[in-house]
């Protein structure tokens, strides 16, 4: 039975505590996601995302702070511009752009994090495993 | 101040792509493919793109070096060639000509390679000659 593998890059100051809150509040979300904490969502470069897909991730979730809340002032602005254009490039290359998702999650939005993971896991479940696209 | 391009042939493989060596103020600084060339058609492989890299390389020998007391010391051409002639003759007499081998370079001209193989076969009396492109 195909269980998708999802990697989540969550920023230290907003989305990771949000995910943490989901955990301490015992909010259920699918276990398909593995979370990697980064200092800021602006650190997530296109090279990193493409390598994550090559290594076998079926989906990549990038979590950042809401605009105006970034600990590093403008890191999330960079992400907000990079991710849409990378999704377009993936679309032109024939890789489904739905595999990459960007969410703005604050430290108090535990339920929102869980909801995003639930939706994303279902989306990825509907797509072929990444090894069929990138052997 | 001068910048010009000199047409030459790539020294590496047997295809013989035409390329331009970029010369800035008397030093070779780069390579450009020869557009419209019947062989290379304006394209080069990675070795061709770096065909200029060894020309001004600091590791290149500029003077004969003789090993004395375990160290390499600079010497004059006459002294170096006298030593080479003396030692090669001695080895040839003691062990026979097949104890000597000669290594040439594909970066040398055809004429230099011809001279070296004539020297190896006619003067030294052995067939042990090879060069880097065969390896």
């Amino acid at each position, binding site marked *: 039975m195909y269980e998708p593998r999802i990697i989540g890059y969550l920023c230290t100051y907003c989305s990771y505590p949000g995910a943490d809150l989901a955990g301490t509040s015992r909010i259920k979300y699918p276990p398909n996601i593995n979370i990697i904490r980064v200092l800021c969502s602006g650190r997530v470069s296109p090279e990193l995302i493409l390598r994550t897909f090559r290594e076998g991730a079926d989906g990549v979730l990038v979590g950042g702070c809401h605009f105006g809340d970034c600990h590093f002032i403008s890191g999330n602005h960079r992400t907000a511009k990079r991710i849409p254009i990378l999704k377009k490039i993936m679309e032109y290359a024939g890789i489904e752009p739905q595999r990459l998702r960007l969410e703005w999650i604050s430290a108090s939005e535990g339920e929102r994090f869980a909801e995003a993971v639930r939706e994303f896991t279902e989306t990825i479940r509907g797509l072929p495993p990444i090894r069929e696209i990138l052997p | 101040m001068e910048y010009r391009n000199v047409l030459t042939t790539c020294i590496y493989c047997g295809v013989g792509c035409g390329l331009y060596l970029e010369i800035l103020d008397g030093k070779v600084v780069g390579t450009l493919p*020869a557009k419209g060339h019947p062989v290379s058609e304006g394209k080069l492989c990675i070795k061709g793109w770096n065909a200029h890299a060894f020309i001004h390389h600091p590791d290149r020998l500029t003077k004969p070096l003789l090993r004395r007391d375990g160290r390499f010391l600079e010497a004059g051409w006459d002294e170096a060639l006298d030593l080479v002639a003396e030692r090669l003759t001695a080895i040839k007499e003691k062990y026979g000509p097949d104890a000597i081998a000669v290594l040439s370079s594909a970066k040398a001209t055809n004429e230099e390679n011809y001279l070296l193989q004539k020297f190896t076969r006619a003067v030294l009396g052995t067939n042990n000659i090879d060069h880097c492109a065969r390896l």
Partner: protein
Amino acid sequence: MKRMEPLKRAVAEALRELDGVLALRRAWGGVAPHLFLREEELDELALWPKYPLPRTLQLIQRAHPESRLGIVARGCEERGLIEMAKRNQIDLGRIKVIGLACTAEEAQVCPCPKPYPTILTDIVIGEKIEPVANKMVEEFLAKSSQERLAFWKRQFSKCIKCYACRTVCPQCFCPECTLEDALWVETGRIPPPFPSFHLVRAMHTVGKCVGCGECELSCPAHIPLTTLYTLIRQEVQELFGYQTGESLEAEPPLVLPMEM
């Protein structure tokens, strides 16, 4: 309209006040970039095939920062110079641009939206023609997702990792290139694994690619790179309203904060 005579006159006039003009020279049966220093050399001036001249101009300017140089630039070369200047790679204050408009045959080789310069110079030799549409882009857009994937996999499997696309690009100036970093692009494999090498390169052209077509012209494997990069340029225009090489004042989109 004949361009050679008016161009020779324009370059000869420029040489009176400049230290040298970078243009193409015919020698040894071929054409290559050359820094013309004297009017007598202009008998060997050539027009085609074009070379990535902005790169060479940067090379000469870095070696002689105080010199006043000229360049015979087409539309794509002018766009390349504008984008380089925005990133402090070239000093346009000491450069005089002599514009050259492409003919219809030349524009067919590397279709671009504007085959003549308009911004950095008032002198444009040659007739300004209508831009030629890139047919491969239109054909590509009709493909489905699976067809696109199969297309690029087949194309990129021909890649020999010669780095020509990166070396000729006027906008690729990073001293440490991501494509040479073993962490992101696995080394020791030919062809480089899909999608790392080529999609990283595509991402790095965002906001920088001016559509000169040199990457595709220099690719020994005839990979249709401009098809992908043209589509990305159109996306950048739609998403950020930014057109590369159109104005010296517009800031590159990826470094700016979002407008709120």
